[in-house]
């Protein structure tokens, strides 16, 4: 057993050898491998070192880093001390200056092709990149240098995925998403301002556990978190369906927790896990706490979601009207799954709206039609 390996970590957690072997067998089964693969998985988990992670902070406000450390499952300390080796993260690492830079270079050399690169913040193109320098280098050069040897690149937060607030009109520093700079590697986008803590850690842990990046939506985001709208799982959804709306803040409807659509909620166009996972270990999310969703995980949200307190021109993707059973079957495109299908889809039924799109669709073209402005930056 190698110190710092997964098995070492599992033993420290009190997991028995028997349970560890069972976990390896299950992993093999989940990955679609036969029993002969189990010993190889056991060996890998017994001997594999913690994968190194380089976390860059570019043009940002550190809200993603703050969210990161609030993760409850896994606990942030479990992640960085047992599951990964967080070799470079300006906000937390003990070393500074040349000592910090040499750790980064050492990791890049010794683990070329193996480390995970996480980026928080946008790159900036104006004036040759002078609006963000680190160690005398521009953010762009630093990003390119680090991306070259990365096994996977994760863009955390709306700054890294769509340039967020500094990229809003008139975008004085020509802030750009990191995929505009990183051309030689696929970039996993994990948007949000910030992303939910467990969405941040969940993306890394998925990669560690299953050895591959999670399945992505057509916009390059992990499906597990970004394939459904805030509206779809909203705690106030029943009031939307019943036509009960807050007309102004703190009115009678507001004091009964009614739907915030009329005071500007963008939940119907926001693809994120907020309403289901909720924030800060499941305490609440913006709509539950009385404020409209601002769709902070959508591209160019500062231009497309404003004015924040004006309501959407239309509600897209409403599967409304008619017999719920028919809607369920039509959306699935499969006959004979009646009960299961119905259970999954009836939330959308309720007699509002005129459109008949399948609920929860993530088709990019369809989504772009409903947001006021499209992201012209994404390649």
């Amino acid at each position, binding site marked *: 057993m190698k110190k710092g390996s997964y098995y070492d970590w599992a033993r420290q957690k009190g997991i028995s050898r028997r349970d560890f072997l069972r976990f390896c067998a299950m992993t093999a089964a989940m990955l679609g491998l036969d029993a002969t693969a189990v010993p190889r998985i056991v060996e890998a988990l017994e001997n594999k070192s913690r994968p190194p992670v380089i976390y860059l902070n570019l043009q940002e*406000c550190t809200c993603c880093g703050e969210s990161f450390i*609030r993760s409850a499952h896994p606990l942030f300390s479990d992640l960085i001390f047992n599951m*990964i080796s967080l070799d470079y993260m300006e906000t*937390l690492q003990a070393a500074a*200056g040349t000592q910090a830079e040499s750790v980064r270079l050492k990791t890049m050399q010794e683990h070329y092709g193996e480390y995970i690169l996480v980026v928080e913040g946008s790159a900036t193109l104006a004036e040759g990149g002078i609006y963000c320098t680190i160690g005398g280098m521009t953010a762009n050069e630093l990003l390119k240098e680090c991306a070259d040897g990365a096994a996977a690149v994760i863009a955390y937060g709306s700054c890294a995925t769509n340039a967020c607030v500094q990229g809003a009109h008139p*975008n004085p520093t020509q802030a750009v998403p990191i995929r505009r700079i990183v051309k030689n590697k696929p970039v996993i986008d994990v948007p949000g301002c910030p992303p939910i803590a467990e969405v941040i850690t969940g993306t890394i842990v998925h990669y560690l556990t299953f050895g591959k990046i999670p399945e992505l939506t057509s916009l390059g985001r992990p499906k597990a978190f970004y394939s459904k709208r805030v509206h779809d799982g909203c705690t106030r959804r029943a009031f939307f369906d019943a036509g009960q709306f807050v007309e102004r803040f703190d009115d009678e409807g507001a004091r009964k927790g009614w739907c915030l659509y009329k005071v500007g909620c963008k939940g119907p166009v926001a693809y994120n896990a907020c309403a289901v996972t909720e924030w800060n270990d499941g305490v609440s*999310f913006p709509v539950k706490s009385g*404020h409209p969703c601002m769709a902070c995980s959508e591209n160019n949200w500062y231009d497309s979601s404003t*004015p924040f307190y004006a309501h959407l021109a239309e509600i897209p993707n409403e599967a409304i009207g008619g017999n719920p059973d028919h809607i369920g079957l039509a959306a699935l495109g499969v006959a004979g799954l009646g009960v299961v299908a119905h259970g999954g889809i009836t939330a959308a039924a309720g007699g509002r709206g005129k459109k008949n799109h399948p609920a929860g669709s993530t088709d990019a073209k369809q989504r772009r039609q409903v947001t006021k402005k499209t992201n012209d930056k994404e390649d």
Partner: protein
Amino acid sequence: MTTRIVVDPVTRIEGHLRIEAIVDGTKISDAVSSGTTFRGIEKIVENRDPRDVWAFVQRICGVCTHIHAIASVRAVEDALDYPIPKNANYIRNIMTLTQFTQDHVIHFYHLHGFDWIDVLSALKADPKATSSLAMSISSWPNSSEGYFRDVQNKVKNIVQSGQLGIFANAYWGHPAYRLPPEANLMGVAHYLEALSWQKEIAKVHTVFGGKNPHPNYLVGGHASSINLDDVHVLNMERLNLVKTKIDEAQTFVNQVLIPDILAIASFYKKDLWGGGIGNFLAYGGVPLVDIHEPDSYLFPRGIVLNRDLSKVYDLDLKDPSHIQEFVSHSWYQYEDKDAGLHPWQGRTDPAYDGPKPPYHNLDESKKYSWIKTPRWQGHAMEVGPLARFVVAYAKGNKEIKEMVDSSLQKLDLPLNALFSTLGRTLARALEAKFCVDQLAGFYADLIANIKAGDTQTFNPEKWEPSRWPAEAQGVGWAEAPRGALAHWIKIRGGKVEGYQAVVPTTWNASPRDATGQKGPYEASLLDTPVAATDQPLELLRTIHSFDPCIACAAHLITPQGKLLC
């Protein structure tokens, strides 16, 4: 012999800061502080709906995530003469004090701690002796020999794995570390505990604002309604969650942070360098009911000059002669290059003329930072917990005076020991205690007000722009964890015409002005000892004692400025 040392990146801070220092023999004889990032948020909010602006400027900083939004909604409310309900003020205060408490604890353990605590030395500790030490200073239950042995083994495993992660390549073993191994082990254990604790106190923000970081706010009050008879809004269950987190925070600060800071400070009593400029400024904040009643502030307002506690000067954020910003050494252009401009008249035209990256050195005789240089009546000013405590002390605030005096007495240190790197760190920890105690008080006020029958959280009176004057201007101020913060707004035709923020780190990290007067970072580094020029631990300790927040400090202020691209 002089050596020029460069620390870039300065880590364990928010944002991108570069320090260059001239070491003459074994002490720093000159220092240069440069903010190396810039985003332009004030330009971006122009022509937007003023009610939206808090959500833009909140993103000036994800660490001070709450307080920029508060300064912004207050600036709009000040411009529109828009009063807010009592409950909204209580909720804002509870959220403010929550942020202070959380931020100060994270700062001490996670951003500053490794300047005082040597992680590798903890491996040499006797866990039994650590247990005795912990029990002698606190009743915190995690203090057994076995507990500390587990923590030690955890660190041992990380070290033996050869993958030190965030601990890699630091200045472990440096002669400026003075704690015995047992105290270091206790510090490492509390680093880990504070990491778990900080996510709990954040839940107070989540209840009221829906998430943390970046909870939600509202011009005219607060968005979450109170109804004790409804399951969907702020009811007793939600309020009890807040109360539980406040209670836990009080226990953590009183039983972990305060005993730790006093124990650690007792080993560093002789290191009283780093006092710096000696001028202190506080806008004051956390009003009992209304921000326009400064006499009711929890944190008093005022100015202390030259460490003279016998006199407190008044300040006026709207008087153009009081607060001005200069750009003599910042990468911006003014028509009169050495003039100072009040934020309502301020402008910023970025004009980078520094070295082309990649570069090795800056030239302090020229422009060298994206941070501007604010001055109060020409004086460089320090802001932050120490400034608040000095002003409160000089004003005779009973609670703060007692906290300061009794702590210094325990440490057997004179009052002027406050004017140091150590004093700045001590003031921050004491302020965490002050805040968490007051937090319980404001929670009680909120409950009492609801009990009296008042559940209003929002004032609809001036929500619609049709009820606004054609032109208006306002300023919103607050105390942020890092110091005095204010946002200035001009509104015309229902839209933002001009917007400017002068933030705590702009005061503290400012480059020198036209007369060569240094800002607090630069001044506080003078005469700092440097035992090893390739391991400037003492330099980091002083800079970290200010809790730098660079994304806040480096930004664009341009009501009439031209486009940058």
